[in-house]
């Protein structure tokens, strides 16, 4: 009886093996042609699985094109093309041979629709196809995908791939994927304990949920091993979470620093309550938008670097507007803080509405250059490139300002005028010009901040309003008139905010920070770093 069944099985499996192999080329072709007939997502998905089941690597480009929405089929049926480009520049390629097909009537084509479920199915299918692909990145991606979606059925394929894998990193990832798959299978406990050891070393959140699942449904030694591994992963993750919070805090602090540093000059050094400070930031962001458009049309090759070009231009634009405001309005109001406040607030409304009239009320898109997109991992911590660049940029701007104020003649004049205006004037310093320069410098730096902030937020006429309160908070907290205070104030507020947020939520976290600042100002009215000496009394 046993023999008979085994024989049957053998016969059947050999039939299955031989059957498609002979007709593979034609069957893949026929399968692909069926994309022209499918109308519903579940039909497309079934077709994708059938294509995957052929195991033929030639179907890969078709599936990739489908996932990207680049697969088109003729409405009449039969013909299926991979499309690159759009509109008049569209090129059509044969899905199997990748040869260009000329003279395709675009009107008769329709896109083969995809949705998320389908993209997932395609990704899973592709990862089984690319596990042994010649490209290292593809193999790694396939293994990573199998690790996050473990499936017991993949163990054999993984074993085969591990046996021939030469790259140690990919091999490790495959072994981890295999271990995850083992935990999902009904292999003996001994195997699973080994798998837990492999995974415990990896120690990320996916692993933790796998381990917890094993802990739930097993007994004896396996359960205790899983529990031990899970708790060690938890401890590690807690440490990483704290590190992550510090990083988030630094990154929020750098944004606050950028927004506030211009104000630290106009308000902190000059004592002008400048409500239009936020609008200088906005002008910087809009300059970035304009520069990006100009670069796109004039020097398309440099598109990735338009941001670098925007920095000096934004400085000049915002600085010029700042000087105009100082010469036109503020110089008549020195020593009258209330009037300055109202006048600059009016200026801010005028600037907002002017931008709204010129550029329209809707958001403008400032693209992220490729070197500012995406992220990388440090252990269990994720660091996004745009945040990292902004932190570095903020520190660079800070260092430059510090240099200008402390090491250049203009900085000396600035300090002299703010400390004792009349004495400076009698020493031959032209105080009105220094005032204009200082205000222009503060505004220009705000413009530079706008370039950076356009990378993480909206570019809209309201952009400045979102930052004005935070900027004043930082400057007052850090101590008016002290750049180091602004630096420390920005980073401590950022970090405090980010440590409160996970426990208190974003809304309450912000309120708590505000309350803490109020209490702090009660205790130290002059902020973290108070100016001492005669300058304060005057």
């Amino acid at each position, binding site marked *: 009886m046993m023999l008979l069944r085994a024989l049957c099985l053998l016969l059947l499996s050999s039939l299955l093996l031989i059957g498609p192999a002979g007709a593979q080329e034609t069957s893949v072709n026929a399968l692909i042609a069926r994309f022209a007939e499918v109308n519903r*997502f579940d039909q497309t998905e079934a077709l994708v699985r059938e294509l995957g089941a052929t195991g033929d690597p030639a179907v890969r480009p078709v599936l990739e094109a489908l996932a990207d*929405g680049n697969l088109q089929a003729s409405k009449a049926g039969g013909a299926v093309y991979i499309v690159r480009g759009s509109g008049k520049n569209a090129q059509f390629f044969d899905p199997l041979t990748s040869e260009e097909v000329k003279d395709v009537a675009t009107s008769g084509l329709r896109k083969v*629709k995809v*949705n*998320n*479920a389908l*993209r*997932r199915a395609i*990704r899973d299918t592709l990862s089984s196809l690319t596990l042994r692909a010649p490209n290292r990145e593809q193999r790694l991606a396939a293994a990573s995908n199998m690790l996050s979606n473990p499936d017991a059925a993949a163990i054999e394929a993984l074993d085969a791939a591990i046996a021939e894998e030469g790259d140690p990193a990919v091999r490790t990832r495959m072994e981890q994927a295999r271990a995850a798959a083992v935990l999902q299978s009904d292999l003996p406990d001994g195997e699973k304990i080994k798998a837990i050891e492999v995974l415990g070393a990896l120690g*990320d*959140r*996916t692993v*933790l*949920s*796998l381990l917890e*699942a094993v802990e739930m449904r097993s007994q004896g030694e396996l359960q205790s091993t899983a529990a031990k591994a899970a708790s060690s992963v938890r401890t590690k993750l807690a440490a990483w979470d704290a590190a*992550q*919070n510090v990083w*988030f805090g630094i*990154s*929020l602090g750098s*944004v606050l620093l950028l927004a506030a540093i211009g104000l630290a000059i106009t308000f902190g050094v000059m004592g002008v309550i400048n409500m239009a400070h936020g609008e200088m930031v906005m002008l910087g962001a809009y300059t970035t938008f304009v520069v990006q458009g100009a670069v796109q049309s004039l020097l398309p090759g440099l598109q990735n670097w338009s941001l670098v070009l925007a920095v000096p231009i934004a400085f000049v634009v915002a600085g010029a507007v700042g000087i105009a405001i100082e010469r036109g309005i503020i110089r008549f109001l020195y020593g009258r803080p209330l009037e300055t406040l109202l006048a600059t607030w009016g200026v801010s409304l005028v600037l*907002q*509405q002017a931008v*709204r009239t010129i550029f*329209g*009320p*809707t*958001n*403008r*898109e400032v*693209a*992220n250059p490729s070197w500012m*997109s*995406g*992220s990388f991992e440090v252990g269990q911590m*994720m660091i*996004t*490139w*745009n*945040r990292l660049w902004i932190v570095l940029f903020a520190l660079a701007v800070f260092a430059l300002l510090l240099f200008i104020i402390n090491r250049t003649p203009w900085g000396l004049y600035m300090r002299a005028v703010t400390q004792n205006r009349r004495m400076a004037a009698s020493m031959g310093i032209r105080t009105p010009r220094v005032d204009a320069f200082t205000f222009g410098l503060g505004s220009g730096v705000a413009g530079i901040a706008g370039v950076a902030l356009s990378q*993480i*937020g*909206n*570019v*809209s*006429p*309201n952009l400045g*309003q*979102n930052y004005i309160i935070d900027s004043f908070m930082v400057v007052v907290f850090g101590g008016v008139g002290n750049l180091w205070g602004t630096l420390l104030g920005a980073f401590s507020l950022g970090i405090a*905010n*980010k440590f409160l*947020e*996970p426990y208190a*939520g*974003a*809304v309450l976290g*912000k309120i708590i920070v505000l309350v803490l600042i109020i209490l702090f100002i009660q205790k130290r009215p002059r902020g973290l770093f108070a100016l001492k000496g005669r300058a304060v009394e005057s």
Partner: protein
Amino acid sequence: MPRVARVRSLLMGATVLAGALMSGESFAQEDTIKVGILHSLSGTMAISETTLKDVMLMLIEEQNKKGGLLGKKLEAVVVDPASDWPLFAEKARDLLEKEKVAAVFGCWTSVSRKSVLPVFEELNGLLFYPVQYEGEESQRNVFYTGAAPNQQAIPAVDYLMDVEGVERWVLAGTDYVYPQTTNKILQAYLESKGVAPEDIMINYTPFGHSDWQTIVTDIKNFGSAGKKTAVVSTINGDANVPFYKELANQGIKAEDIPVVAFSVGEEELAGIDTEPLVGHLAAWNYFQSVDTEANAEFIETWHAFIGDDKRVTNDPMEAHYIGFNMWVKAVEKAGTTDPDAVIDAIIGVSVPNLSGGYSTMMPNHHITKPVLIGEIQSDGQFEIVWETPGLVVGDEWSDYLPDSKDLIADWRAPLSCGNFNVATGKCGGKGIN
């Protein structure tokens, strides 16, 4: 004609100078019907509302080309409430008392609507409100042409549950009345479907929140528990761009954790590079990509009117299109612009919507609409991946909240009540109206 215009501007000037001396009579003699447009053109909400002002001007111009209404030309009266809620009420009073407009099209935020409600009630005006909102309201003088929660949120959740197999939910929203009420309804709905409370995470952020690092990381961690997770987002306007940028940068793909949004349409996507966001979802009653003749014509008219063929169309614009046409039809049916007559005439009026069907004004002053789910595409448009088989009637009082499930609204005589309690048989259950 210039003479007439000059006389009119003189008259206007005189009104300002002489104030009370000039009565409404001088306006009553002109043969125009005035239509009020109450949308913010400055301040925070200008970003969304300016477009609605433009679309109203376009609709009025188109109607005038067709010969106006009741033999008279329509005249738009545009005011700017400047995103200031009390100012909405003042401007509404101006429109109704001074300008004597026949109907007002306006408001975006719920708080602005709540602020004008007493004015419309007192002066018996008509307000057409075009934005999706939290429900829990039905007022005699207001027509809600945007979606109620059952015309947007609940079908979206059904889609995620049935098609994407989602078992774990993040309800993320801005901290104000629309997200709070919607999330309350959704939470009750999800729990009624057997979702465990620990599989629902609710998160609120302040208006204009720009630092999403912690929350996006939380979402990612919440989603790595081995169960399929989705985010239902009621995050408002400005905060969306940094939210989606952070999602993209932290590498959260739609295949892993899809985000379905109720406040993100074509207009909001115009400020973002959508390449990394392909596959994230939005639920609306209209998308620009709807493939119908009526929509193609609407888009063409819009581009010609605004003089920029890159401008997109969105759901609240369609709501104004439907609302305006309903009002026109009701006025024609009643033969007058008198508010009471129009309120009676408009119930049951059906006009074509842009997605290829007809929308009808129901007795609860909400309309019937199809619900569409779209996936974001790399060109900033949505591809429709699912739609309700038929039209959905707007449900003003949610069936999933304990204190409103017995309430109904029916403004036809003899009931004429916005909050009739079917359990006690009395009008006047919950709410002020």
